[in-house]
């Protein structure tokens, strides 16, 4: 036997299946926390600024700056306050979802036809009823488009948080793979991460179809 390893070692994958599964679960958990957190912040913000329109510019500007900060720089800024760990990682991940979620949320609500809004008002919906029963349901397709981008982006970004001791599959890619020049770990980590992104995206498409049966019939009719 020489020192030379084969490029891809299936035996390593099999031996470390438990570890890979755990890393994948952790990846999913980190993504879920980030996206759920992002939605919990973005949704109310969207509803407020879509009505108080002069806030739209500042809010999108601020989330745009957050989005533009490189992740390493953001970690560097946060670590003195929140330390090295989950909190820092999630603050960064959540920050990156906000621009996409809020921008699509506002676009979705703005896209509701004025006729339909006026009909709702004229028929005696209160503002709140109109928002929940008419405007939000009709904005769902555009909001979902934002959610899909946010989820796929976050799944990719989670890997970087390996640099501050988190990372899910990022731990496999960066710590086990890149640092030790071990191709099998890199391929396994990247492969699982891509698979996760594809599955999550398909899942969201199916969920959206289930939630908006009317949009499908429209597509068929036109």
């Amino acid at each position, binding site marked *: 036997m020489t020192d030379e390893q084969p490029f891809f070692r299936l035996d390593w994958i099999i031996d470390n299946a438990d570890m890979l599964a755990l890393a994948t679960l952790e990846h999913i958990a980190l993504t879920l926390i980030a996206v759920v957190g992002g939605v919990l912040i973005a949704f109310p913000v969207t509803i407020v600024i879509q009505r108080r329109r002069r806030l739209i510019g500042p809010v999108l500007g601020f989330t745009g700056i957050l989005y533009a900060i490189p992740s390493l720089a953001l970690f560097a800024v946060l670590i003195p306050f929140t330390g090295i760990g989950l909190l820092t990682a999630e603050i960064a991940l959540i920050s990156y979802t906000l621009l996409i979620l809020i921008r699509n949320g506002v676009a979705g609500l703005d896209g509701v036809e004025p006729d339909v809004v006026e*009909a709702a008002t*004229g*028929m005696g*919906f209160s503002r709140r009823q109109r928002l929940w029963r008419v405007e939000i349901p009709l904005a769902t397709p555009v909001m979902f488009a934002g959610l899909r981008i946010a989820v796929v982006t976050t799944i990719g970004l989670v890997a970087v948080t390996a640099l501050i001791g988190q990372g899910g599959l990022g731990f496999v890619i960066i710590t086990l793979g890149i640092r030790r020049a071990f191709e099998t770990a890199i391929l396994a980590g990247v492969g699982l991460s891509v698979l996760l992104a594809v599955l999550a995206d398909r899942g969201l498409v199916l969920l959206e179809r289930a939630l908006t049966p009317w*949009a499908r019939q*429209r597509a068929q009719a036109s």
Partner: protein
Amino acid sequence: MTDPSPGAAPSASGSVVAFEHVTKRYGSGPPAVTDLTFEIGAGEVCVLVGPSGCGKTTTMKMVNRLVEPTSGRVTIDGQDVASLPAVELRRRIGYVIQQVGLFPHLTVADNVAVVPRLLGWSQPRITERVEELLELVGLDPGTYRGRYPAALSGGERQRVGVARAMAADPSVLLMDEPFGAVDPIRRERLQNDLLRLQARLRRTIVFVTHDVDEAIKMADRIAILEVGGVLAQYDAPDRLLAAPASPFVERFVGADRGLKRLSLARVRDLALSTPVTAYLGEPRSAVRSRLTDETGWALVTDGDRRPVGWVEAADLAGDGAVTADMAVPGSALLQPESTLRDALSAMLASSAQVGVVVDERDELLGVLSVAAISATLQDGTDPLGQDRS
């Protein structure tokens, strides 16, 4: 005239809607509506008509408080609309807007059920009401209940819009250019449908349009507004045509007032003639025996008495039965509610100078000739006499 079909809503009557010195001013500019005072009788169709910028839609929207007057008041049966919470008021007033405004994410049934749900009706009561309303506007509940608006034609959407506005049995209906987005032929039909419905239900309807012909056809009374929301004349259509109150009204009504007065009379006002008819599958010899030298044509109908087309004596030679491909279509289809103007226009546009009159189920009622209409025009006693100018 038209027999009320079973399942019609109980005929509650309309309310009196009154405008008392109503002015609407946006900012510091000139008023959009200026000191309007007029009263719409219970169960009447009042059409607001005028050029763009005359405030007709603004005026209508003050009834359900989508627009609040700057001064003056609007009352329904004597009660100031401003004394009710806007949301409650609106649920009691039917509303049909220009592009119909159906909710695309709700099925036809759920669209119609919107106001009953807001009012908290029980589900069985809502379901029953939805079925009743769809039948009322001529849509088969089984076919249409579960469809989304995207899968409907323009005319079908319009019907759903009317059903939705009627859902909670309002005494007042507001309609803002309800047929604006429909092609002329379907528009004529929808107008007739609404008139038929109104003959039965007798609601108070405030109807906005920019089309004088539509106003003349639909209205019990027309309010003509000038730019700035000044009431130029408030009168029944025949009075408006016979005695325009000002040069503005005369100009707006148009130079062809004589022709427009054809819109005052309906097909149902004339005696229809009964054609020789033949039904599909009937032996040709039997039809031949009914034709005389003067009437060389027979009208072929199907088993449901729906007209198919005309067949000529020459084609009825020999034995055998009358078949659909022998029948030549080409006559305009008219309804009793069609105005003589629409009827004449349709007849002149078709290849035969005879219109076939059918009811709302497309069953044959009779035929009408251009000659019959022109005879009416020459008859000095009717409302279609010589133009004053």
